[in-house]
């Protein structure tokens, strides 16, 4: 334990050299810009900048690239709050209450609480990374296909009605998401499904296209439909004093931030787009725990603080499998793996022993980076809030431009852009008829994983369904799901009986 501490101090020594500090700063700034621009996400940013790191030593390179990753998480919430357009896919949930807060003139508070929440989450996350990394990695390994299946079922049932409007409509959207998720190559047999002979569809529909399309383009189209006059509207920007959260705001949010951090850290260990799932989980939790659930959807600050913290801490947790096991669980960390390999570092169980200066240097620099981002973001809150001054007729076309370019950077595919526009049209139609996009996105993310886990489990057990209940962790999740479904019904019955 003491040794770890000593390593950490060394790490700070490495991270605070002028060279590494500047790389950290560059990474954080670039990451924030990437996060703010809708469509472009950390994956593209990191991949594009890898060649820029060729001349650097491994530690500096990773410091910069890691900076981009969590910088993007900070920046992603900005457009979500101001324009109801997610800056990147994990910020979709932030749109819900964040935009409502902006509409009520509380954009500054929302932006600030995002920065603060992310900072707190990042700080705790780093401690978690340092002290809990090996046992958490072992725990992550213990999750086999049956456990993933039950976890997915649990997540699916619990998170489907995250916005709490009509249950039937949410379920319809979930099913639609599931169907869309089946398009592509069957993960178990390798046969194409629903591709109609189209080559681009073989890879399935890119989930970023659906997210940015439904929420970003959909939002723009909804605005366009409004009468011409409102496009010249500008939201009234309050005074500087009013831009920062009050003490009461901070008190309310603290619980959400801490819970979000914990949830995000745990969920971040799941392979795949974990930050997205983490934000859903945090939002649901806050809604259930809150004494004023009716506020959610109308500008509850917990609905912004929780998910943003969960987002950031899931990001930190994603480094654990990468550094401890040498296996990336999510696309951004896969690219970091590539960067590490190019620089001659073999991530894996031996990395911490062989390259302690890299591991501890990066950890220390993450802490510094979080601090830097907080300092960067807070003063910029008034600047960002002023974006709302731009008349919508100029702002909205710019948003579309960024969405399209950003979409292209993900896969260099024009097909993706068409998909995004298609889903934009769908999103617009859905909004007219009060259908929520959040369940669709969740189903698109969880559905394929659920299917793969189910089939893998049965292949491993030679068709024995008992595998899901014979394993303790899997059984726990299944029981939790059943309880979640039954308890409200039981409560209702008992209430009626009690009268």
């Amino acid at each position, binding site marked *: 334990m003491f040794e770890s501490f000593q390593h950490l101090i060394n790490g700070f020594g490495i991270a605070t050299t002028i060279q590494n500090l500047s790389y950290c700063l560059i990474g954080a700034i670039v990451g924030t810009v990437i996060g703010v621009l809708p469509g472009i996400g950390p994956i593209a940013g990191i991949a594009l900048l890898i060649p820029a790191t060729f001349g650097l030593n491994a530690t500096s390179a990773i410091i910069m690239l890691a900076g981009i990753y969590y910088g993007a998480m900070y920046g992603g919430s900005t457009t979500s709050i101001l324009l109801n357009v997610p800056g990147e896919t994990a910020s979709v949930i932030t749109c819900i209450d964040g935009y409502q807060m902006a509409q009520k003139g509380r954009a500054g508070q929302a932006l600030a609480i995002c920065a603060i929440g992310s900072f707190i989450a990042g700080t705790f996350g780093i401690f978690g990374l340092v002290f809990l990394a090996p046992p958490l990695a072992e725990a992550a390994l213990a999750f086999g296909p049956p456990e993933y299946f039950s976890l997915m079922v649990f997540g699916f049932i619990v998170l489907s009605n995250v916005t709490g409007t009509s249950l039937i409509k949410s379920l319809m959207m979930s099913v639609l998401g599931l169907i869309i998720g089946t398009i592509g190559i069957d993960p178990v047999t390798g046969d194409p499904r629903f591709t109609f002979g189209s080559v681009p569809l*073989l890879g399935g529909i890119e989930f970023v296209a659906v997210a940015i399309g439904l929420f970003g383009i959909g939002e723009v189209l909804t605005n366009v439909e409004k009468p011409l006059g409102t496009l010249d509207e500008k939201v009234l920007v309050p005074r500087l004093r009013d831009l920062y959260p009050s003490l009461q705001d901070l008190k309310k949010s603290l619980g959400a931030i801490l819970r979000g951090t914990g949830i995000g850290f745990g969920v971040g260990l799941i392979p795949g787009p974990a930050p997205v799932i983490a934000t859903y989980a945090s939002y649901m939790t806050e809604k259930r725990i809150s004494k004023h659930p009716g506020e959610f959807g109308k500008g509850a600050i917990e609905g912004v603080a929780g998910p943003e913290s969960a987002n950031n801490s899931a990001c930190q947790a994603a480094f654990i499998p990468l550094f401890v096991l040498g296996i990336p669980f999510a696309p951004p960390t896969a690219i970091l793996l590539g960067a590490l390999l190019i620089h001659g570092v073999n991530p894996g169980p031996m990395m911490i022993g062989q390259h302690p200066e890299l591991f501890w240097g990066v950890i220390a620099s993450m802490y510094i980076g979080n601090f830097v981002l907080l300092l960067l973001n807070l003063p910029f809150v008034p600047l960002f809030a002023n974006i709302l001054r731009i008349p919508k007729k100029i702002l909205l076309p710019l948003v579309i431009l960024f969405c399209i370019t950003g979409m292209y950077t993900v896969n260099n595919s024009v097909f993706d852009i068409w998909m995004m526009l298609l889903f934009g049209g769908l999103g617009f139609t859905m909004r007219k008829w009060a259908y929520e996009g959040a369940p669709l996105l969740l189903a698109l993310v969880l559905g394929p994983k659920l299917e793969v886990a189910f089939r893998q489990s049965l292949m491993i057990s030679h068709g024995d369904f008992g595998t899901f209940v014979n394993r303790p962790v899997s059984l726990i999740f299944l029981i939790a799901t059943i309880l979640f479904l039954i308890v409200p019904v039981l409560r209702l019955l008992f209430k009626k009986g009690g009268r």
Partner: protein
Amino acid sequence: MTKIIFAILFLLSLIMAMPLQAAEFPTKEVQIIIPWAAGGATDLIFRALAATTGKYLGKAVVVINRPGGAGAVGFTEAMQAKPDGYTLVSAVTPLTILPHQVSTAFTYKNFDPILNVVDDPSMFLVRSDAPWKSLKEFLDYAKKNPNMIKVGNSGAGGGVHLVALAFERAAGVKFNHIPFSGGGPSVTAILGGHVNAVSVSPPEGISQVQAGKLRIIALFTEKRLDLFPDVQTVKEQGIDFAMGMWRGLVAPKGTPADVIKKLHDAFKQGMEDPALIKNAKDMAVNLRYLSPEAFGKLMAADHEFYGKLVKEIKKLN
């Protein structure tokens, strides 16, 4: 006034759009399409090669990722590109496998080979605490318990899955193949003990073997690996089987012969560059140069081989 400016700009743009005189190749940068996402094994080695080849070619070499459809998207686009030597594509073993599995617009015949760069071994890994200490024990157990040993792979129908299937036929046993979405999840699964063995190709699993958590139980190469000189190949132990994953460069069919020669010479020099050799060593990647003719023959042979293999598998299913 504005109209005049626009007219001038318009005319200028027309002039610039006219094709340039065919000057010495290359007059601009060369693109390599990688049909997989950034960060994968193919992507990494070709990025490193692109970095060193630039100076020998005289113009920069740039890598573009076009993932999707298990490689189909990238290959299709490369096939349709102009055969002028400015668009190349990394040809990897799946190029000869994919056309047998789904109906694609391309086969290896739509491309002209330039050279082969990498010949990555494939192998089976088990946990270091697994009960089988040798290949013999492993296969004996498999023979006595058909379909019981769970062998993970990085994707149904993918390269390492087919290696596992071909090995089954060569050794006369039957495994239970469990597909995962990529090399990472398959290695995670074996570390967690959810499968008994995993079929991989470096760099997947290498760092875990070096750390002592996993062991190589079956090595499907012609010669022993430099990195692990004590590990015997299956050939040495009596099974005539060797199969690897090659990665080379090809151009769309019809590219002029002198352009191909220039590209070939430049990339060969890039391969021999000490920086690349070091990079490859660090990534545990096995460089193996093949001339265009030899590479073309290899692709043709593999196309035949995988065609037969995939047909057999389809019959069984």
